[in-house]
């Protein structure tokens, strides 16, 4: 009895699986949907080729498969839109409108999401109202799908709904913000009021999202206004966006926030100055190489490197700093900027001035960096010995950060 049951269970499952696969192959006529053969990899094809490909698939695939593909978030719009239009024309919108307006149970939820996707891709006029209802449904999957679909709509009303979702935390704010950040329309007038919201989390996202709207003259002042915000995250977001936006007050604001009591604000202020690529401001950033917080020191190194080789003279001045973190950081920046390689190269060719040689030696000795093996191997293996003579020997890092 047990044997019969076991054999029957195995055979049934095996036949079911193979039949399911056969049906899948038959329906998809050789098109592997999850396998990306539907959308060939490689350079973007011209729109006329997309249209031709979509027409070919419409002629080839069964209606049920086309309907399923129309609701697939993984496919590009040039496929989902004609598939959705075809599905709506063939089956009528009423069925999808019913499914998209309410649901019961787990399967109903996924059907509702599929119907919403098809109505949106097909450009149905009732889709925005249905999306709004989905957004307020409280069901996390449904709200997520609505946020995703709203992010693809080319209408300010959709952006307003996304902003409502952000304010009321209907969905994880980072996901909503990601949608707003890549919204098909520019909506600065909707984003700007966020920075005046009483909720610091909303102000944070407002400041972050404004980075996209640097061309607007009122954006930089709005961001500058946030640098005195009580909430450190808001100050951090403001200075980060100012780094991207630039403008007259970006540098002075970032410099001011280098002295912020909260470490991550200081770190982002330094990064903002790096984004502005203002090598002349390097001396103002350099003291933070000795910041008590590791992440600030790391941000300062990144910022100095972003400012370019012009910061080298200022950075070289820190090689004699009493703080070992500052010395190490300065030497590392010089190395990563290629300054040490350049000096070592000159030394190898016998072209190094006394000043060059002194700097190279200071980087090796006081900076705690070990350019002897590294620099020499990078530049010219043949000249390694000659460079090595100029250095006091491999000193390694003086210590490790805390």
């Amino acid at each position, binding site marked *: 009895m*047990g*044997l019969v*049951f*076991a*054999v029957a*269970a*195995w055979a049934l*499952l*095996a036949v*079911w*699986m*193979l039949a*399911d*696969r056969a049906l*899948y*192959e038959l329906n998809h006529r050789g098109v*592997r*949907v*999850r*396998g*990306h*053969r539907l959308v060939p*990899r490689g350079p973007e094809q011209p729109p006329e080729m997309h249209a031709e490909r979509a027409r070919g698939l419409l002629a080839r695939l069964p209606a049920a498969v086309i309907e399923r593909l129309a*609701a*697939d*978030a*993984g496919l590009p719009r040039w496929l989902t839109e004609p598939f959705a239009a075809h599905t709506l024309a063939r089956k009528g919108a009423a069925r999808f409108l019913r499914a998209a307006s309410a649901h019961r149970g787990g399967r109903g939820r996924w059907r509702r999401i*599929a119907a919403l996707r098809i109505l949106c891709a097909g450009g149905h006029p009732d889709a925005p109202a249905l999306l709004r209802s989905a957004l307020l449904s409280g069901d996390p*999957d449904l709200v997520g*799908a609505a946020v*995703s679909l709203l*992010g693809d709509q080319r209408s300010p009303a959709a952006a307003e709904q996304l902003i409502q979702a952000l304010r009321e935390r209907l969905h*994880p704010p*980072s*996901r909503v*913000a*990601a*949608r707003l*950040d*890549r919204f098909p329309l520019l909506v600065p007038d909707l984003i700007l009021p966020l920075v005046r919201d009483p909720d610091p989390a909303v102000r944070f996202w407002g400041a972050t999202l404004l980075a996209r709207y640097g061309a607007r003259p009122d954006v930089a002042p709005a961001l500058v206004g946030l640098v005195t915000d009580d909430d450190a995250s808001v100050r951090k977001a403001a200075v980060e966006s100012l780094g991207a936006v630039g403008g007259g007050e970006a540098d002075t604001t970032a410099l001011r926030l280098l002295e912020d009591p909260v470490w991550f604000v200081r770190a982002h202020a330094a990064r903002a100055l790096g984004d502005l690529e203002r090598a002349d401001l390097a001396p103002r950033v350099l003291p933070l190489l000795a910041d008590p917080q*590791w992440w600030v020191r*790391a941000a300062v190194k990144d910022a100095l490197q972003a400012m370019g080789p012009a910061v080298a003279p200022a950075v070289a001045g820190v090689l004699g700093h009493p703080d070992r*973190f500052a010395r*190490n*950081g300065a*030497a*590392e920046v010089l*190395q990563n900027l290629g300054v040490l390689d350049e000096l070592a190269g000159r030394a190898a060719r016998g072209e190094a001035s006394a000043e060059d040689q002194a700097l190279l030696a200071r980087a090796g000795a006081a900076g*705690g*960096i*070990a*350019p002897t*093996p*590294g620099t020499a*191997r*990078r530049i010219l293996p043949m000249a390694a010995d000659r460079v090595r003579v100029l250095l006091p020997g491999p000193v*390694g*890092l003086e210590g*490790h*950060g805390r």
Partner: protein
Amino acid sequence: MTAFLREALPVAVQACFVYLALTYLLFFLQLVVAAVENLRRSREERIEDYRLLANSRFTIPVSVIIPAYNEAAVVLGAVRSALDFDYFDHEVIVVNDGSRDDTMAVLIREYDMHPYQVFYRRTMPTEEVRGIYRSARAPRLLVVDKANGGKADALNMGINLSRYRYVCCLDADSMYERDALLKGMRLAVADPARVVGVTSVLAVGLHPERQGSVRDAARRMDRSMLINFQHLDYQRSFLNNRSAWSRLDYMLCAIGAFMIWRRDVLVEMGGFSRDFTCEDIEMTFRVYERLLREGRPCRILALPDTLATTEGPAQISALVRQRARWQRVILETVWHYRRMLLNPRYKTVGLIGMPFYVITEVLAPVFELGAVVTLVLAVLFHAFDFGEFLLFLVAISMLNAGFTVAALFVQDRMMRELQWRDLLHLVLISPLELIAYRPWLTWARLKGTIEYFRGRKGWDKFDRNVRQAALARAGGAGPP
């Protein structure tokens, strides 16, 4: 004595039968839960906009860590696939753990690596660092050359150097799908306060580099029965069991070949431990133990997607060594964290996960050995109907095959990546697994249990015979 044995035999048979029935019942219950979980993940997959995740500046960057020890034949495949991850921002840190082969040379040659001094933060102590290399060709890549200290030590070194809030630990002998990181991180960022770790399903092959990036082509199974059985074993274990563990919040083994962790959690735990044979399962237990004891939110999730292909042992001796090591680490970990067993403070981990581990892993060698001894005694005492035994064996084989086909079914529905002939081949060999493959695992478990009681801790890395030979044929140019 003989009379005693004659009386004891039926009791032993009954005990084995009860154990067998209990384990299969547990597997069946898990299969039901896993089916619900897999269906949910599959539906989520259809509504997720991965293009947005891959391109948004709000997608959290990840530090990918690949520890490598004597992996010259295979490391390039893993590094290449990690660098190719379809992700907004990630760095790849390869830690050469004092390899005695050409691992470093291969990396330096392929990626034009140059030594740099990096002033890193030594959050966790590790063996001495010999050098840190940056690539002239791949700006995301950083290679650390350090003295040998074991995989845990290498991972800790990678954590020290990592710059981002999440770390993704990979194996140097595996090949990864382009969307592996994206799919894993989708779950992590959906609920970052609670989700501290994410793991996934692996496929097994002899030549993972031929199977990687299968999204562009159908997966080709290697024609090796041993590898095919391992593949089936993995699929069943992941899709029937771990999906259920994930659903019920006791994902007790985030696999070393693909595990995403929140970096702050790893740092808080003090990094991976060198005191255990393997680091992955122990870290999972430790995270649960600490966070649940302190009443903090904690979820470790498993994806049902096959995100990587790992190299499986090509010889039985190597397989036995590998599985004996796994058995050792299970015993080490379960014993070390025994306070969680049946302890309601640890929720489902203590009440379901740990008992499951004890029944199906810790006690398995005892009952498997008991079954073999009972069988031998039954033959000796003629207390045995060979025909009935054969029928029973066939029934168990088919039941086992049923579980395997259920896992294959889930895998096929999710990925549709196996070719017809491979699918058919796997279905047809599934009933043979119990007879042709399981005995070796039983032997490995016994061996591992004995080694555990002897206090053995070695890694027993298996030789990359097949891929090493391929490398040699290709003139040392690396995997094709």
